[in-house]
């Protein structure tokens, strides 16, 4: 990183100031190099990625192992912490100590902590957003929270960066024009709200940086919001959170200096590269954990290795190795030759294959560590390539070298919870584990909840009340009866 823009005089900045230095950029829709720094936290070079946590941990990585993983920042979703809101105050808000969220999840002090409302990817909530509230999915069912609640939560939890609330009807195939107008209006109100609340925090108290959401709708439909963002909010935000990378050319130039967090879920490395080529900086990458759960050890490098025989261009390399395959059973080699991750330096393919087929949890731990290292090296390669000015050719070579998508999953993954699986995966799951019986009453409740005849069946409301008494409130909305499964004791075998 040579062409470092001269940094502003650091002594004049308040200590919590998040700084983003653009180290190299070649135009509007072009890859760029940056450096995100916050005093006390590890520097994040961009393009780069955040660890995508579930309930405070990168899945399968316990906090002690996290210290061996090369992850400099994490994304945390508020909906993982407020399952009993509003009936009871979520425990995490009852911590009477600074850095409460970081402390609670035992995140190292030098790891950047980014908080958003929804998990990545968010599971569509049947609780529609309103002018004042957005719908969430917690492990106890669907909830909604107000913008005020969000601001108060953020102040209490003290993340380094918060992604502002965005009104996005997730899971809705088509969104009408009127609804899009509303998206823009509400998002603007909520963004103003969090800025005002943050600016109201007294001097000396810890403050957080705000990333303003950029909606996945055409520029003209959110032009009002964007104009206001530029007119009177731009100095108060430290970055943007972008829900549709392909609308990056709509991004106003006055926002170019800000870091861009992609909330546009990439399906695989090819799509990551496309987003990077449009100038995206920071990612949460759900496909890492998805591959891990499927027992797939990612196996790609950027730039791609030289092709050995250019004649047989038809056979492209797989992006990952299915560790379930019995053919690995006697292989004493690392998952990826030359990989420096914990799994590859300490263990070999045969052991990991064994762990999967024996359904030992350690298998997923090791693959997860490996997969994160693969992505870490991938981003190092991407940054070097941008630095060298060879990114475009390198992407072309990558596409020619590797298959376009990740391999299909063949083996069974670990048990998936209701709050964990995405919509598309969900359909898959439904086929895999057909439900033995369906709860007639529950479905009755669901219909009532959809608001067809809110008052027609008072006895239905009584059903809900009864459930509330035994702490099952909210369960009626959970898909697939996943919550009943949650109550079961796990893994009764030795």
């Amino acid at each position, binding site marked *: 990183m040579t062409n470092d823009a001269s940094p502003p005089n650091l002594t004049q900045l308040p200590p919590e100031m998040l700084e983003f230095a653009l180290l190299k950029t070649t135009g509007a829709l072009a890859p760029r190099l940056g450096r995100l720094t916050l005093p006390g936290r590890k520097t994040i070079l961009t393009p780069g990625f955040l660890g995508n946590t579930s*309930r405070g941990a990168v899945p399968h990585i*316990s906090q*002690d192992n996290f210290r061996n993983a090369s992850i400099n920042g994490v994304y945390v979703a508020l909906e993982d912490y407020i399952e009993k809101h509003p009936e009871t105050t979520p425990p995490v808000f009852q911590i009477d100590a600074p850095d409460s969220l970081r402390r609670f999840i035992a995140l190292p002090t030098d790891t950047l902590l980014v908080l958003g409302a929804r998990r990545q990817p968010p599971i569509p909530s049947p609780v529609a957003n309103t002018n004042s509230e957005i719908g969430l999915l917690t*492990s106890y069912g669907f909830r909604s929270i107000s913008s005020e609640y969000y601001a108060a939560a953020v102040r209490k939890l003290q993340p380094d960066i918060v992604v502002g609330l965005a009104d996005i009807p997730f899971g809705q195939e088509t969104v009408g024009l009127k609804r899009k107008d509303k998206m823009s209006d509400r998002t603007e109100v909520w963004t103003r709200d969090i800025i005002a609340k943050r600016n109201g925090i007294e001097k000396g108290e810890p403050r957080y940086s705000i990333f303003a959401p950029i909606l996945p709708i055409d520029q003209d439909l959110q032009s009002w919001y964007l104009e206001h963002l530029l007119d009177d909010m731009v100095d108060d935000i430290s970055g943007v959170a972008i829900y549709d990378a392909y609308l990056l050319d709509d991004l106003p130039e006055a926002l170019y200096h800000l870091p861009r967090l992609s909330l546009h879920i990439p399906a695989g490395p090819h799509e990551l590269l496309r987003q990077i080529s449009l100038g995206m900086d920071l990612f949460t990458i759900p496909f890492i954990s998805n591959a891990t759960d499927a027992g797939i050890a990612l196996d790609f490098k950027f730039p791609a290795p030289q092709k050995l025989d250019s004649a047989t261009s038809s056979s492209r390399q797989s992006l990952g190795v299915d560790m379930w395959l019995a053919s690995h059973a006697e292989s004493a080699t690392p998952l990826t030759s030359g990989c420096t991750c914990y799994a590859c330096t300490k263990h070999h393919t045969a052991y990991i294959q064994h762990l999967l*087929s024996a359904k030992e949890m*350690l298998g997923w*731990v090791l693959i997860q560590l490996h997969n994160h290292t693969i992505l870490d090296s991938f981003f190092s390669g991407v940054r070097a390539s941008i630095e060298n000015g060879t990114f475009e050719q390198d992407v072309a070579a990558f596409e020619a070298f590797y298959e376009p998508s990740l391999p299909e999953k063949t083996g069974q993954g670990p048990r998936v919870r209701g709050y964990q699986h995405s919509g598309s995966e969900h359909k898959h799951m439904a086929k895999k584990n057909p439900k033995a019986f369906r709860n007639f009453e529950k479905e009755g409740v669901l219909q009532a909840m959809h608001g067809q005849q809110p008052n027609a069946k008072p006895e239905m409301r009584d059903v809900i009340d009864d459930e509330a008494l035994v702490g099952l409130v909210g369960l009626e909305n959970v898909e697939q009866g996943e919550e009943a499964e949650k109550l079961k004791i796990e893994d009764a075998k*030795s």
Partner: protein
Amino acid sequence: MVPVSMPSALTFELLGKCSVTKARAATLHLPHGPVPLPIFMPVATQASLKGLTPDQLEDAGCRLCLNNTYHLGLKPGQATLDAIGGAHKFQSWPHNILTDSGGFQMVSLLKLAKVTEEGVKFLSPHDGTPMLLTPEHSISLQNSIGSDIIMQLDDVIATTSPDLARMREAMERSVRWLDRCIKAHKYPERQNLFCIIQGGLDLDLRKECTIEMVARDTPGIAIGGLSGGEAKDAYCTVVDTCTELLPEKKPRYVMGVGYPEDLVVSVALGADMFDCVWPTRTARFGNAITARGVLNIRNAGYSTEFTPIEEGCQCVCCRSQEDGGLGITRAYIYHVASKETAGAHLLTIHNVHYQLNLMKRVREAIIEDRYPAFLKEFFSKLYDDKSKYPGWAVNALKGVGVDLLSD
């Protein structure tokens, strides 16, 4: 009838004996390094300790863990173990491994197993083909595994079985099978074969078996067939009876024992080594072992307890961040228990550490000859009132000179 004395790949270094009870402290020098006795051995059934990496297990203080021959024989199988070069290499564990013979799993997992003089017949859980596990095959598998301590194949039947004739047959057959195991054992100079005393709850059978087994002069001796639902009083009597007849200079292993109170009482009765899946299994159900008993952290009451799993515990989870630990709280365990695998990993670390640390404190107490006081303190912490002390523990300890109920 007694075969020639067999070579041993261990040294038993006795460090101290309790002047009141039969407890002993020792260092057992094994091919992969010394281990302190008394010891609790966590069970890594399928060459992995329930989600923990070998480094995490090592950090918890473990230097000797178990693998199950039956499981490893099925998966990854002998061919793979031979190709990789044994279980240490297979799971990247630089310390000691003990493997059981597979006999216990035959009986506990395969209800339809049939025991004949030749061996144990069972149907493969993979494809249903009939299989036979003989003493020779069990030893051959354990030779391939390369474990530091290997166990003879024994004829295990439930201690609660009322059939005395069958009990005698099993005991005598176990002795015959030991002879076959000794003969089949290819590497006595680097793997220590332990015999297993059988005989159910019948003290005469146990005595007879002990004498026969001791005569075979294996490097170590196990007391088997217990921990199968028998009354605790009967369990203690059997252990006490057997250790009475055992040579002082050999390690004594009581199989399948792991509750903290069972451990401290069994040590007082003269036993040195223990294993059990309970601490790691119960961790996956959200249970934390503490000096004041087992806490089910899935109970909603813990959701706002922002204190370590156990105050003062030195495991990496409980130690504060200032102290180089993680500062994990009960509230966080509640937050992830049975929702994220990492939650199970954290509690597993804590529970393994608890067990190992308990045995470390036991050992120190024996060396400093204050084990009776240790026992009293242990029970006074575990139960808030003497009236709640389990009768079997009170009786067993009284038998070795410690009156828990006196002040």
